[in-house]
């Protein structure tokens, strides 16, 4: 339900663009703090999708996330998975992040029952918090839109 916390053991995903990607030897190896910078329209919280809202294996969940993504995706863009408990623990020395359910109840194509928010947005203004979150994302946690 809107406003309820996303369970600590569940995963959320973040849409990562070219400025968020870390590349070594021409290969994607992770993301940078930029992936967790609040974007222009993110005033209420960092926009993520609740991956475990969907059932099935990771492949199926990635397919579901693709189907509810509203941002324009490019071939270089990635979907980064993070465990909610790890995200909260990583930021804890500097803030008190929470991840809450925030389903978009508008009519399709805007509807997204899996939408969630990472709050408060002010904690994500801290470079160290964002660097800590970026360090959690390993290459296996990154999935393509195509």
């Amino acid at each position, binding site marked *: 339900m809107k406003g309820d916390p996303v369970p600590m053991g569940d995963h959320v995903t973040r849409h990562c*663009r*070219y*400025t*968020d*990607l*870390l*590349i*070594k*030897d*021409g*290969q*994607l*190896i*992770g993301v*940078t*703090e*930029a992936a967790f*910078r609040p974007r*222009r329209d993110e005033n209420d919280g960092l926009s993520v999708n609740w991956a475990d809202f969907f059932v099935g294996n990771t492949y199926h969940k990635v397919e579901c996330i693709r189907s509810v993504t509203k941002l*324009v995706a*490019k*071939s*270089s863009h990635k979907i980064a998975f993070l465990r909610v408990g*790890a995200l909260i*623990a*990583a930021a804890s020395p500097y803030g008190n992040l929470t991840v809450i359910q925030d389903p978009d109840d508008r009519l399709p194509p805007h509807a997204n029952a899996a939408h969630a928010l990472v709050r408060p947005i002010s904690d994500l203004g801290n*470079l*160290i918090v964002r*660097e*800590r979150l970026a*360090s959690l994302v*390993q290459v296996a946690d990154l999935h393509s839109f195509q």
Partner: protein
Amino acid sequence: MTVNEELKDKLVRADLPPEIRASLRLSLDILLTAYDEDEDPGKATPNVQSFSNLLEFLSHPYIRLWVSPGIAVNPEGLFVAVWEEPRTHRWILNFAPTGEIGEVYLRTDQDGRIHDRTRKSKLGDPIYPFFSVANR
């Protein structure tokens, strides 16, 4: 000369070991391709001076012995270099066009607890790594 051409030209002319140059070339190609396809009207152009500063840093007599870093271009167009041992050490260096280098180091314990340190330095300063970066 376009910015992409200028960046590649800087790389060709940099005083770097061939392995590092090749690694950076591959990574730069990926980043510039992704930059070109991004339609965000507010996107920042990759900063040539920031890239030059990164190359100068990597040409240092002992830093040139290290394995190649991961690189990124941040939303301001500045180049970022990262050396890491996944889930253990991560050393992030942000290269400003002015020559300042912003550093963040993260060490992750086996229980997942993360410790951090920050440092500011300048191009040309003796910079010691926060962890033992492997040689090539």
